[in-house]
């Protein structure tokens, strides 16, 4: 690993830890007491590997890739949400190249056993928004959300607006920070 890469990795690792910690602090009591916000580490990958055999799973995403992605992009943000020993959700995103906005690129919830299932999107958004502010981004974007109808209805209350696809760029939900 080159020195500049290592320095960047350390700097952003501090931001990631801080974002997870602040986000935990601001959650409602019932979530703060029950959940843990962590990185996508080896234990998260091991827990997620079980999802592959779950018939209730709707996607076939390779989360081991996330691990390589955060190494290649030291400013990316990875999040795993746990309730006790149960992995409830994983998500991955990165800042835009000029750092003006933070992207949430994808999120997956545990297909079957997911306590606080309806809160996972909210927890994830608080964490991504916090990381975005810490690194100086001005917007949070949820890129090409496949279930945007549900999200649009919910997120209107959270200050997000819908941005149509334009000039080859994907549609997204946007929040000014």
């Amino acid at each position, binding site marked *: 690993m080159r020195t500049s890469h290592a320095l960047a990795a350390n700097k952003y690792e501090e931001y990631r830890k*801080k*974002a997870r910690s*602040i*986000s935990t*602090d*601001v*959650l*409602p009591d019932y*979530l703060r007491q029950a959940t843990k916000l962590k990185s996508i580490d080896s234990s998260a990958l091991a827990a997620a590997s079980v999802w592959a055999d779950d018939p209730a*799973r*709707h*996607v076939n*995403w390779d989360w081991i*890739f996330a691990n390589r*992605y955060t190494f290649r992009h030291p400013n990316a943000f990875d999040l795993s949400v746990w309730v006790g020993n149960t992995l409830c959700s994983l*998500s*991955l995103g990165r800042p*835009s*190249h*000029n750092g*003006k*906005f933070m*992207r*949430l*690129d*994808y*999120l*997956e*919830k545990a*297909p079957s056993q997911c306590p606080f*299932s*309806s*809160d996972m*999107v*909210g927890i994830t*958004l*608080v964490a991504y*928004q*916090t990381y975005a*502010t810490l690194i100086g981004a001005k917007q949070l*974007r*949820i*890129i*090409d*959300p*496949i*279930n945007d109808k*549900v*999200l649009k*209805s*919910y997120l209107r*209350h*959270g*200050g997000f607006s819908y941005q149509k696809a*334009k*000039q*080859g*760029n*994907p549609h*997204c939900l946007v929040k000014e920070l």
Partner: protein
Amino acid sequence: MTTENEREKQARENAQKAANTLFGKRTKEQEEALKKVTSVGSPDNLIKPDGEDE
């Protein structure tokens, strides 16, 4: 120039506001719809363009 401390303070304030909104009162329909959301976005998004960066 924004200092690290100011950014952290701002991040905490924004996080609290977001949490208040996102975990505030939800309708039954919103609650059910959110339960049904099993994934958002896609790994394909990682290779999609950045918008303003282009």
